[in-house]
């Protein structure tokens, strides 16, 4: 009996090995950027969650699908690695994508950077792209690129809807983590609200997670308990939207149209269209063109946009105000402009992680072009009118 079992196990293992080898294909040594056509190119994606998060990964995956449609790729040319944590599993996933013959490998979460870099250095023929990261600018690897979108422009527009709607003149913001990507996001949201409602203030509380629905709800509830009547968020779930709805206040979303989740609260959502970058990336690789080390575009390139307004509940004139501001931004208006100050009345200063000064807002003519030279956001001072509780 034992012998029979051992033989069966051996046979099963042989089959498994053969099957794995077949899956791996014949390009075990990695892809080659030359001789690529849209029929044989392969693109691998590393995602921190899967599209069922209905948040960041969902939205990014929509971009992937749209890109595949734009270029005319078949499903088999896209390999997704979902639920890859920001740890050594990421390196394994990237290596598996290399083994599978991917010519382009994209990772979408901030913490994937280090693992991707290790592999990128070993495979100069494969193109690597990483969203939200900042390494491309100084690593000097020709095949490693960073990208992001100017989501702050969309948040500025979404802030207008909030600023016009609020009755208590107090906004609340459920933020994920205290670093520049998030701070840049909520500051632009606040500036948008302030552009139409000079009396508005905003309170920010951190959930300390990208996706922790119960905590996001607790944070939203605490903000509402403090008198906020429009809640916005930089986190994945719709929990802040449903919390706002249950309390009879309003909500501005992120990543997905949240109106179906909270029809009586969700005003509008700020979204990114990742297909703009992905289509350009893949097309450039096919054409043999150089790919920018850093890429971030906004409203003008349609890389960010607003989901449809919830016409039943937005304040009168919201659509017109948003359209006007959108035209201004496309026409060259900078979101982070003017004499921005901190809560003590000092000039707002953008600094690096180490504390070196990047930019100081010294007067009414000051402006900072966010995500211009480098794709990852830099804006990190807390400006007047925003109160952060941490």
């Amino acid at each position, binding site marked *: 009996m034992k012998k029979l079992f051992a033989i069966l196990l051996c046979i099963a293992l042989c089959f498994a090995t053969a099957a794995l080898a077949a899956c791996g294909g014949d390009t075990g040594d990695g892809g080659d950027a030359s001789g690529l056509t849209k029929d044989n190119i392969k693109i691998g994606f590393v995602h921190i*969650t*899967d599209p*069922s*998060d*209905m948040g960041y990964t969902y939205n990014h995956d929509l971009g992937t699908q749209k890109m595949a449609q734009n270029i005319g790729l078949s499903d088999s040319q896209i390999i997704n690695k979902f639920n890859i944590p920001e740890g050594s599993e990421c390196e394994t996933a990237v290596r598996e994508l290399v083994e599978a013959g991917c010519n382009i490998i994209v990772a979408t979460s901030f913490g994937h950077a280090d693992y991707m870099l290790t592999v990128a250095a070993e495979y100069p023929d494969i193109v690597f792209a990483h969203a939200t990261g900042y390494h491309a600018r100084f690593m000097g690897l020709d095949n490693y690129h960073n990208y992001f979108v100017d989501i702050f422009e969309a948040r500025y527009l979404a802030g207008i809807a909030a600023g016009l709607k609020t009755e208590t003149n107090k906004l609340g913001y459920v933020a994920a983590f205290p670093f520049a990507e998030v701070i840049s996001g909520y500051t632009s949201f606040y500036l948008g609200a302030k552009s139409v409602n000079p009396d508005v203030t905003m*309170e920010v*509380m*951190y959930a*300390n*997670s990208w*996706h*922790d*629905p*119960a*905590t996001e*709800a*607790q*944070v939203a*509830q*605490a903000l509402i*308990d*403090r008198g906020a009547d429009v809640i916005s968020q930089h986190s994945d*779930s*719709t*929990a802040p*939207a*449903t*919390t706002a*709805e*249950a*309390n009879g206040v309003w909500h501005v979303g992120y990543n*997905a*149209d*949240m109106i*179906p*989740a*909270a*029809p*009586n609260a969700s005003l509008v959502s700020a979204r990114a269209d990742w297909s703009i970058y992905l289509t350009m990336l893949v097309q450039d690789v096919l054409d043999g063109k150089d790919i920018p080390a850093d890429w971030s575009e906004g409203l003008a390139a349609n890389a960010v946009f607003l989901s449809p307004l919830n016409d039943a509940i937005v304040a009168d004139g919201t659509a017109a105000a948003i359209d006007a501001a959108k035209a201004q931004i496309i026409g060259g208006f900078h979101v982070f402009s003017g004499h921005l100050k901190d809560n003590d009345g000092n000039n707002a200063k953008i600094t690096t992680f180490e504390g070196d000064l990047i930019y100081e807002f010294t007067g009414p003519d000051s402006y900072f072009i966010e995500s211009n030279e480098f794709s990852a956001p830099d804006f990190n001072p807390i400006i007047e009118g925003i*109160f952060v*509780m*941490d």
Partner: protein
Amino acid sequence: MFDFLNPDNLMNFFVAAILAGTPLLFGTLGEILTEKSGNLNLGVQGMMFMGALGGFAGAYYYEQMAAQPVAVISVLIAVICAFLTAAFGAFLYSVLTISMRANQNVTGLALTIFGTGFANFFGEAISFAAGGYAAVSSETKTIFNTGIPGLADIPIIGKILFSYNFLVYFAILTAIILAWFLNRSRAGLNLRAVGESPATADAAGINVTRYKYLATVIGGGICGLGGLYIVMNSSNGVGGVWTFNLISYQGWIAVALVIFATWSPARALWGSLIFGALSVMRLYIPLGIPAQIYDMFPYIATIAVIIGVSMRRRRENHPPDSLGIAYFREER
């Protein structure tokens, strides 16, 4: 700006603490009942996930199919389905550990992984079929999020005592019933005997297998109500919209809370209030310390209780004697 000592803020804090403590209370009560039978079921997190999915799916599909859905029926279906789905998870655990005598720790951990995957898989299927977000009707959402009509509007007292959704009162009632059952009823005493020394109970003519099965399955169902609370409540959950990975840590806190409460439903009552308060404290009473420190408080408190209990050496505060050990009748 944050004048956190004003009475309104403190009242909001108290309400938020009760709301945050309730799912923990369900998990803790379910696990106390389970552990009193000598079964250490570490699958609370998984059963909460299963309860959340079952309750949500029950209410959602009823509302989709009924021509004129009635919110009260929808809520009732949600409660029953949540209980049954989680009880099914506990039943699988029982078959493996009681009938097949598998290792309880491993089976419990497997149940956590299974329940998480089960709920996320079917939850995703429901959401995709709904075209993105699957949500219950706003009438159903309202029932899970409003207090007792009339009484809740009384100033101050109404907010402190009557502003909670029915699951909060149901959880408190469950704790009282469970305390009475374990201390005052014959069946409860039999169950405790099974947990302390199954061989002795067996010799006394108590059907050990039946008690273990019933306690574990009903306990699992109670844990599932904690999941239902998280999927339906909006102040401390996802407010009736299915959300990926909606339960992040509550099941594990409940396991810690069982130890904190030293297996007593009455102590679980205020224990869950304390743990709930700790989980929202940083939002209402900022002390200027990192949030991560706040997150440690419940576990530090648990460790302190374990140390305290083992130093005092009172038998009532100890875990059931046969906890974690499968019962072999032939091994007596």
